[in-house]
């Protein structure tokens, strides 16, 4: 009962925030619905095409690998949600100090994470069903695939929940032990769903077993809740003593340069730069692995586009996670400390310039992540340059999208660490994808007709991407000046 009361309070708070957001931006739900339906239609069309004969990439995309991907994505989302909603949430002290068992608090928060994400999944599945019926699409996803997918998402969210607590324990040794134990879940999922490819009913059976196991470890994570919460939210850190030199950024005003200095030092000390570069390194390695797993060169009508598109898809994902996400939380994440810039003589534009300049330190990493596949595949130099310029374009566009939405509709909810809700995030990523596609596809098409013109066009598009970021920064400045706090 107490768990339900806590969960109900969470739901009420989230519903009110969502309601306020919708009242503020009345067109947003319509735009979001259009983007959701459009993007799912594209995915279903691609699946329909892949099921026929048009595309023969040679990759083995099986229902099992899709179910595993859903499990893995849900694990990441569950961990991130739990981290901000529970482990790193200072307001949890009000629940912890009540005569409530910590198991009830964990159950309440688990309920919140599950209900928020499963409602989004239900929305997606409902839309997919409507699209399949409406457009008479022939998508090979019948039988036990969908129940297995839902079960994998539930299991992934529960495992992610436990991961967030385990990764927040107070010592590296305890973290490593807990994470190693929980690592059995993704390892088992990989073996059963991808390596052994149990088949439709086998997948359903396996994921159905995974759900209660996931729920059990998530609920058992109350044993580490106190330690994790104290380590992340309650106890101040030891407060490292440092002396440092002030960084100055060329071309920026003195004030923007000062804010750049602050952003870089903060991102470095929070290990955000290292984590971003590690993520991009992982993207490069994953793309290389996918390329090396291909049984042979791609064939079919779109063969020449396939490898560059694969690379661009990986780069897009990397840029979204490293650049867009930071842009999205740029204002929401530091709401309470905004008084510092707002009571000193600094223009909002200078604030955004300082932040954006710091984000751009990641751009070389994004470009580097695009290079392993062209080098392994022995692309001609001009195609390699095209891919690198494409990655550059994606990086700037995704940074611009993050800055635009992060300042247009900043989320000041502590439960999300300044990031928008899942629906908005999805919409933002789709907008970024569309913007990248609009810029890159004409350029690539031209390149495969006339290489010289195509390269020149790609340089122009790379410049345009910089312009997109400059315009988004200019647009964002007045929004910061207009913020009331």
């Amino acid at each position, binding site marked *: 009962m107490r768990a339900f009361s806590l969960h109900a309070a969470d739901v009420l708070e989230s519903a009110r925030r969502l309601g306020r957001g919708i009242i503020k931006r009345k067109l947003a739900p319509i735009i979001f619905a259009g983007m959701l339906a459009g993007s799912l239609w594209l995915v279903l069309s691609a699946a329909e095409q892949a099921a026929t004969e048009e595309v023969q990439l040679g990759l083995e995309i099986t229902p099992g690998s899709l179910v595993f991907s859903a499990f893995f994505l849900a694990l990441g989302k569950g961990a991130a949600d739990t981290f901000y909603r529970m482990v790193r949430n200072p307001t949890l002290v009000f629940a912890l100090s009540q005569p409530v068992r910590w198991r009830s608090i964990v159950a309440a928060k688990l309920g919140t994470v599950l209900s928020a994400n499963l409602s989004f999944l239900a929305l997606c599945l409902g839309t997919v069903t409507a699209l399949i019926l409406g457009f008479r699409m022939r998508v090979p996803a019948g039988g036990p695939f969908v129940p297995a997918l839902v079960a994998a998402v539930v299991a992934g969210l529960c495992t992610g929940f436990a991961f967030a607590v385990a990764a927040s324990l107070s010592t590296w040794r305890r973290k490593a032990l807990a994470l190693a134990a929980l690592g059995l879940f993704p390892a088992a999922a990989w073996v059963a769903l991808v390596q052994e490819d149990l088949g439709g009913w086998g997948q359903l059976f396996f994921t159905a077993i995974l759900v209660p196991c996931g729920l059990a470890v998530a609920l058992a994570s109350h044993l580490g809740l106190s330690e994790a919460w104290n380590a992340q939210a309650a106890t*101040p850190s030891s*407060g490292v003593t*440092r002396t440092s030199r002030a960084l100055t950024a060329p071309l920026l005003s003195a004030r923007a340069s000062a804010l750049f200095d602050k952003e870089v030092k903060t991102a470095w000390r929070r290990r955000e730069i290292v984590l971003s570069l590690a993520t991009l390194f992982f993207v490069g390695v994953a793309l290389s692995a996918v390329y090396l797993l291909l049984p042979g060169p791609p064939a079919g009508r779109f063969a020449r586009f396939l490898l560059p598109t694969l690379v661009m898809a990986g780069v897009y994902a990397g840029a979204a996670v490293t650049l867009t996400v930071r842009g999205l939380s740029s204002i929401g994440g*530091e709401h309470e*400390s905004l008084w*510092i*810039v707002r009571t000193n003589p600094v223009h909002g534009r200078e604030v955004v310039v300082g932040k954006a300049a710091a984000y751009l330190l990641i751009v070389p990493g994004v470009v580097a992540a695009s290079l392993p596949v062209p080098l392994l595949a022995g692309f001609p130099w001009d195609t390699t340059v095209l891919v690198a310029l494409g990655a550059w374009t994606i990086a700037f566009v995704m940074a611009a999208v993050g800055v635009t939405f992060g300042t247009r509709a900043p989320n000041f909810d502590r439960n999300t660490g300044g990031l928008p809700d899942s629906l908005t995030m999805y919409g933002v990523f789709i907008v970024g994808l569309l913007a990248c596609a609009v810029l890159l596809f004409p350029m690539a098409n031209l390149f495969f007709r006339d290489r010289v013109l195509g390269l020149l066009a790609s340089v122009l598009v790379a410049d345009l991407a910089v312009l997109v970021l400059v315009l988004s920064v200019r647009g964002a400045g007045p929004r910061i000046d207009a913020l009331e706090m």
Partner: protein
Amino acid sequence: MQGSVRRRGVLAARAVSKRYGTIVAVDRIDLDVPRGEVFGLLGSNGAGKTTLLKIFATLLRPDSGHATVGGIDAVADPMGVRRLIGFVPETPALYEKLTGREFLHLVARLRGLPAKEADRGIQGVVDLLHMEAEIDREADGLSRGMRQKLALASAMFHRPPVLLLDEPTNGLDPRFTKILKEWLRGYARDGNTVVLSTHVTQVAESVCDRVGIVSEGRVAALGTVREVLSASGSSSLEDAFSVVVGGP
């Protein structure tokens, strides 16, 4: 212009109102605070003190009326106002991964202070508030009191003509409360203006030249401490506060 500023006070509010939805936080307040004065805003929780300070600090825009600092309108020229003020909010969130010294240098760079002047000013407040031992630690490792001192230091070291302090003694121990009060008195004697909001009537009694008791978004009593006491027929500011606000 200068004459007008002198007449109206360094800080002036004319029929300033601010609403949050249906709640009236500040209701047509008129106020003048002259140069060289320490002015205290007293009031119960939610009375509108913080909202009024935030309007002067350009963090909020009034729905109606005008607020000026040094003759500069806070809405028309917020940058001009920010050059004149130093502000400390009620709960000062800091940049957690910057050290105290880095934070103060950031403020100096944002205000365009020459490096030597900034160093001198920073060292002055570090010595005044006895922060030397912890000034090079990251803010996320600092105690509540040290964070408050750091926020105060960021408003004080560049010696702005107007200081706006929301509950400045929050988290400070009695020793540093005393140091701060003495410093504020001296700062005002040098011709600067200090406006502070506080719940602690003893602080207002000991440091403020004049006080205004804010109740339900309006200034219900205004004057020197003695004037407020005699108007309310009370022997202490605490009693006067209860009489004016209408509490127990």
